[in-house]
């Protein structure tokens, strides 16, 4: 368009008054309509496309469905067909979108300019030519082994390509590195059962789970899978409920779901497991199996062990008795955070316990084993550091890992990198290692790339791109193939694939032969891509006790430190940030830690007794000193750790990595020594003791939950198993008598409406993992407000998890009783109840009558609706809401490019000055109703699934129509355990909670 025409146009626009700029005070909409040049056949603008892929946020390998609108992924949900996660996803999986759209991604290849020391963008052509030349020079000089390649532990085609590439190059120095490895477990299984595999733990079949600390509901191994299984067996249903005993020095998120917490001394899990085994064998519960292991466990009497573990001998006996008498028990090992210098022996002890109780083959099944890469041990890592320092590492390539942040600084890797000739990083973000690199070749994020991952035997997940690359990044597989081509000769011949996708397809030929030899490969491939992979049932294989177990030394592991360092340090993976790889995702930074409810920071957990000895309170800064290092961090005082133990989460303490992560919190790895498991050489994290001293300073810790005590207001309720059974009995009689009766709150909609939307949340299922919270952020365009605003109570979460420390109440079965309860919990803290709290969509809503402009009102389908364009921001509604679930937009919060591409087009992006809150995902209700309407029928039960219920790994949230007496939600709302939070206010909520059930040790 020429200049004069545009000017004319502007004049015409101005004169005719047709300019749209004059209208109202709201934001200007986009003024162009951009059509496709060639519209892809499968895309209809306005209707989402779903692509199956694999979540790569941790090694668990959950299957995902990615919702794509007009070419932009806007939501990630679990793949319902996938055997690992069955449609569910954790908070980190939900936040993978913020990895894709992270504004701090490296936008193009970069090379460090020697003169300035700064990075400067270069083209891919230049970058690859440069690197190929350097590698070629090394090869021609016969020093190919001076190239080292560090990668993550994914099991799949890229893994095989890395291996093939290094082999073709002639360098043996490929190192697999993973922050949290399961090598001690693998080795223990080799020693105990002669098979170096990670078995499938069948939590859903277990009636009693005794865990020695594994965070299986948060970070250990395959958390979404375990959460689903755990909730199947542990939640109350069909008149039974599994029991879970957490035997560990720290009550983690996983531990907070236990019916009993036994706080043993750190590094004593091995002894407790052995003593339990001994009791089992001595009482004859192990039958014939007992004879073989008796000599091994004989010396570990409960009395001897009790002293070392810091608990009563009777407790050990009780644990052993319960374990033996349970119809289906399962013992789980300590998690990665409790891996000590004798981790393998500890895992062997747990194996023996499972073996003695006859669990192997029942709740511990070999055959459908988990598959993980085999990470290098401490020695290989030390050898790498030595090689670097000796100048023997001329080129180091790093892919998918950030060793500077995730290795204890005592390794000296950071200093050693100074001596590396050329450090090349394939990172997508400027992590600590990339920031030190000479050349950065940014990889695609998983949502942009082809790939595969096999998390278990018989399960092959297939990953496909869901968007065109957002930045000028390139798949590392493609880079390696291109480098090989550039180097020519042997290298090019052995790696002759044109791109990674063709390599991937070729490596799937074997899977094709295994799964569908009768189909053509093309058919098989298309089906696999659209399903997100292929999988099959794998039969269990029997194992027998190996003789090697006789040689295991059950030495008590040592901890660094002496009399001056009285506290044992636990450094555990953060449920939100994992090892720190998720630290630059604002959703996860603002997601309250499930145990402490702290946002945006690091802390040290300390027992009240220890705190009073030191004279500190929550927020006082402590100097933590270990023989290996020291740091300052704010104290968080609570009863979730032993008095002789302190705990600091991993994940924070980045110097680089991006605007939300850098300069935030501390990295406790600076306190750890170079320590390893005696048998496998895997890094030991439970390795040191520390001294604490108050600095006198204060640091602001933003704890978003005001109190963990509901002050007897019956907000969170927990009953004993007996009381729950009785209440269910009464309810059952009532339902038999009037099968079609509706709950009272079903009335709170227009008499003619077929719907009254409602929700039921089973607190005995909810594990507090907070996946729902992040899913809600993703679905509903909820802004992130930052630490400062959180401190002022301005966080915007529509849904939050409240955790209360409750006592178990015996009831008379009719509900409402509030007498002295039988507390079955022997530990000092009591029962933890996680309670998801969102707008209750009250039938008699206190917020509605106080709104002067009718911006909030009750709609004909029973929803409590907030009309943004009507709201003038008086905030009266929020003041009048007893649940405190309404959120006010204090500012226009930003979604810096390209984060704005994630916004859900079906939900309004709110502006400054309006009130907002949970809508029950009204956009999903509208869409389901529109679909049902087009088919001339009502919405069927299960057709509307809000984002929180969709992702809940524990299947705790059920949504539906309260006016349909056959809907799941109606049935749950009539349960004997049903209650309304603050129901005495006569708010008539649409959200019904089902009481948490605690099972004591005498109940079964």
């Amino acid at each position, binding site marked *: 368009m020429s200049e004069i025409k545009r000017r004319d146009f502007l004049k015409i626009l101005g004169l005719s008054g*047709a300019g749209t700029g004059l209208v109202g005070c709201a934001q200007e909409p986009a003024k162009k309509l951009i059509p496709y*040049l060639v519209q892809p056949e499968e895309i209809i603008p306005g209707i989402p496309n779903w692509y199956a892929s694999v979540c790569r946020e941790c090694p668990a390998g959950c299957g995902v469905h990615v919702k794509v609108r007009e070419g932009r992924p806007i939501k990630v949900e679990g793949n319902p067909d996938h055997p690992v996660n069955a449609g569910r996803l954790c908070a980190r999986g939900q936040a993978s979108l913020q990895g894709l759209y992270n504004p701090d991604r490296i936008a193009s290849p970069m090379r460090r300019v020697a003169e300035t020391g700064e990075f400067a963008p270069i083209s891919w052509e230049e970058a690859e030519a440069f690197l190929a030349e350097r590698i070629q020079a090394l090869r021609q000089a016969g020093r190919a082994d001076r190239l080292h390649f560090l990668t993550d532990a994914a099991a799949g085609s890229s893994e095989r390509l890395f291996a093939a590439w290094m082999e073709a190059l002639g360098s043996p120095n490929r190192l697999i590195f993973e922050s949290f490895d399961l090598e001690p477990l693998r080795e223990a299984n080799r020693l105990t059962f002669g098979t170096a595999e990670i078995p499938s733990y069948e939590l859903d079949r277990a009636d009693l789970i005794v865990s020695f600390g594994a965070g299986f509901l948060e970070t250990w191994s395959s958390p979404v899978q375990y959460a689903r299984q755990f909730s199947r067996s542990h939640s109350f249903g069909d008149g039974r409920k599994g029991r879970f005993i957490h035997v560990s020095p720290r009550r983690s998120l996983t531990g907070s779901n236990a019916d009993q917490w036994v706080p043993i001394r750190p590094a004593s899990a091995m002894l407790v497991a052995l003593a339990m085994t001994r009791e089992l064998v001595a009482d004859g519960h192990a039958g014939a199996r007992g004879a073989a292991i008796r000599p091994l466990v004989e010396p570990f009497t409960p009395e001897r062990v009790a002293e070392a573990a810091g608990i009563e001998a009777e407790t050990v006996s009780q644990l052993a008795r319960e374990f033996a008498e349970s119809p289906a028990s399962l013992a789980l090992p300590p998690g990665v955070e409790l891996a000590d210098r004798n981790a393998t022996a500890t895992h062997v002890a747990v194996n023996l316990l499972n073996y003695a109780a006859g669990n192997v083959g029942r709740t511990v099944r070999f055959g459908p084993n988990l598959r993980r890469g085999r990470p290098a041990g401490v020695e290989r890592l030390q050898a790498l550091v030595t090689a670097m320092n000796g100048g023997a590492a001329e080129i180091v390539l790093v892919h998918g890992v950030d060793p500077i942040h995730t290795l204890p600084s005592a390794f000296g890797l950071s200093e050693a990198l100074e001596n590396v000739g050329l450090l090349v990083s394939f990172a997508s973000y400027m992590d600590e290692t990339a920031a030190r690199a000479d050349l950065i070749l940014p990889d695609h994020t998983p949502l942009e790339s082809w790939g595969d991952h096999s998390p278990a035997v018989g399960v092959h997940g297939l990953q496909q791109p869901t968007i065109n690359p957002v930045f000028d990044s390139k798949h590392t597989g493609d880079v390696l193939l291109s480098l090989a081509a550039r180097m020519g000769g042997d290298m090019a011949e052995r790696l002759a694939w044109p791109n990674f996708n063709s390599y991937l397809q070729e490596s799937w030929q074997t899977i094709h032969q295994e799964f569908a030899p009768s189909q053509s490969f093309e058919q098989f491939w298309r089906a696999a891509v659209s399903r997100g992979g292929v999988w099959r049932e794998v039969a269990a294989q029997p194992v027998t006790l190996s003789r090697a177990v006789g040689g295991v030394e059950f030495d008590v592991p040592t901890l660094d430190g002496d009399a001056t360092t009285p506290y044992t340090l636990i450094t555990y993976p953060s449920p939100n940030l994992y090892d720190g790889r998720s630290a630059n995702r604002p959703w996860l930074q603002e997601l309250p830690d499930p145990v402490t409810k702290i946002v945006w920071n690091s802390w040290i957990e300390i027992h009240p007794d220890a705190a009073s000895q030191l004279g500190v309170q929550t927020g006082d800064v402590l100097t933590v000193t270990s023989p290996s290092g020291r740091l300052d961090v704010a104290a968080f005082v609570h009863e979730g750790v032993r008095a002789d133990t302190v705990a600091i989460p991993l994940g924070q303490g980045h110097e680089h990595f991006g605007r939300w992560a850098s300069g935030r919190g501390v990295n406790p790895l600076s306190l750890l020594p170079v320590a390893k498991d005696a048998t496998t050489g895997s890094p030991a994290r439970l390795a040191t003791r520390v001294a604490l001293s108050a600095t006198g300073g204060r640091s602001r810790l933003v704890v978003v939950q005001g109190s963990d005590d509901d002050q007897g207001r019956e907000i969170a309720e927990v009953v004993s198993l007996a009381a729950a059974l009785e209440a269910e009995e009464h309810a059952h009689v009532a339902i038999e008598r009037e099968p079609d009766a509706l709950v009272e709150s079903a009335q709170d909609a227009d008499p003619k409406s077929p719907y009254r939307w409602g929700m039921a949340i089973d607190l005995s299922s909810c594990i507090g993992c907070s996946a729902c919270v992040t899913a809600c952020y993703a679905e509903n365009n909820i802004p992130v407000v930052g630490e400062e605003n959180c401190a002022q109570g301005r966080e915007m979460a529509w849904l939050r998890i409240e955790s209360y420390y409750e006592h178990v109440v015996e009831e008379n079965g009719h509900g409402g009783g509030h007498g002295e309860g039988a507390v079955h919990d022997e530990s000092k803290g009591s029962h933890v109840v996680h309670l998801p709290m969102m707008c209750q969509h009250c039938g008699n809503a206190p917020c509605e009558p106080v709104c002067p402009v009718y911006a909030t009102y009750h709609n004909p389908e029973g929803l409590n609706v907030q009309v943004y364009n009507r709201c003038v921001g008086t905030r009266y509604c929020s003041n009048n809401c007893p649940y405190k679930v309404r959120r006010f937009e204090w500012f226009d919060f930003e979604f810096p490019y390209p984060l704005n591409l994630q916004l859900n087009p079906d939900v309004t992006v709110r502006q400054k000055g309006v009130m907002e809150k949970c809508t029950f995902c009204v956009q999903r209700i509208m869409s389901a109703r529109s679909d049902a309407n087009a088919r001339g029928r009502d919405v069927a039960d299960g057709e509307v699934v809000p984002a929180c219920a969709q992702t809940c790994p524990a299947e705790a949230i059920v949504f539906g129509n309260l006016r349909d007496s056959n809907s799941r939600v109606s049935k749950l709302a009539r349960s004997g355990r049903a209650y309304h939070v603050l129901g005495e206010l006569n708010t008539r909520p649409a959200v019904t909670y089902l009481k948490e059930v605690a099972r004591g040790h005498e109940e079964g």
Partner: protein
Amino acid sequence: MPSNRRRALSVGLTGLAGLALIALVFQLQRPHPALSAALVQGDQFSLDPDTLVGWGRGPVQPIFFSHRRHAGVYEMDCLYCHSNADKSAWAAMPPVELCLGCHRVVRAASSEIQKLRGYQERGEAIPWERVYWAYDFVQFNHGRHVRAEVECEECHGKVEEHDVIYKWAPLTMGWCLECHKKPQEDEAKLAAAARNAALFGERGRESHGLYPRSIDSDYGVLSGPIDCAACHY
């Protein structure tokens, strides 16, 4: 000399252009001279520049596209180009490929079609000026309206008579509600309602007018809901 003449010529032309602009100011209904020239050139239908309907009331588009020609003269169905208006919340614009489906042959020499081809060859999207839009807090669903047999012209006017598309309806909430509240008399809509009602009746639930005086397509009766949350969320 020639330079002087050129200068004189350019001054004259500038003057003429100025006059044309003034003429524009006073005669907004008349098309832009350059535009009408482009239209007349090679146009076997020879549109009369004075009778372009809608001229000046809507924005000048990057390509002069006449709905009168396509929907009026040739009676093309709206859904031929806006093919998702009945399926999706968004009616959407036809892809360039669809235009060229006919225009590779039909009037391929015309200057406007050349422009179209230019966009296609450059791989560039046509930046159509947006005429109808709603604020972000309005969730308008085309598909539901089309399926409820609301005619396109009820909101967009008789586009088959318009050469230039302009905002025919005010698109204010009051205007939306006028229709949502109106008892329906239109035969086609009543028939659609009857079909819906019959479907509902089969399942033993009576149709009901959920909202006073309104006919609600959601609940088996007619017209649109007046519940705020139907559009605002």
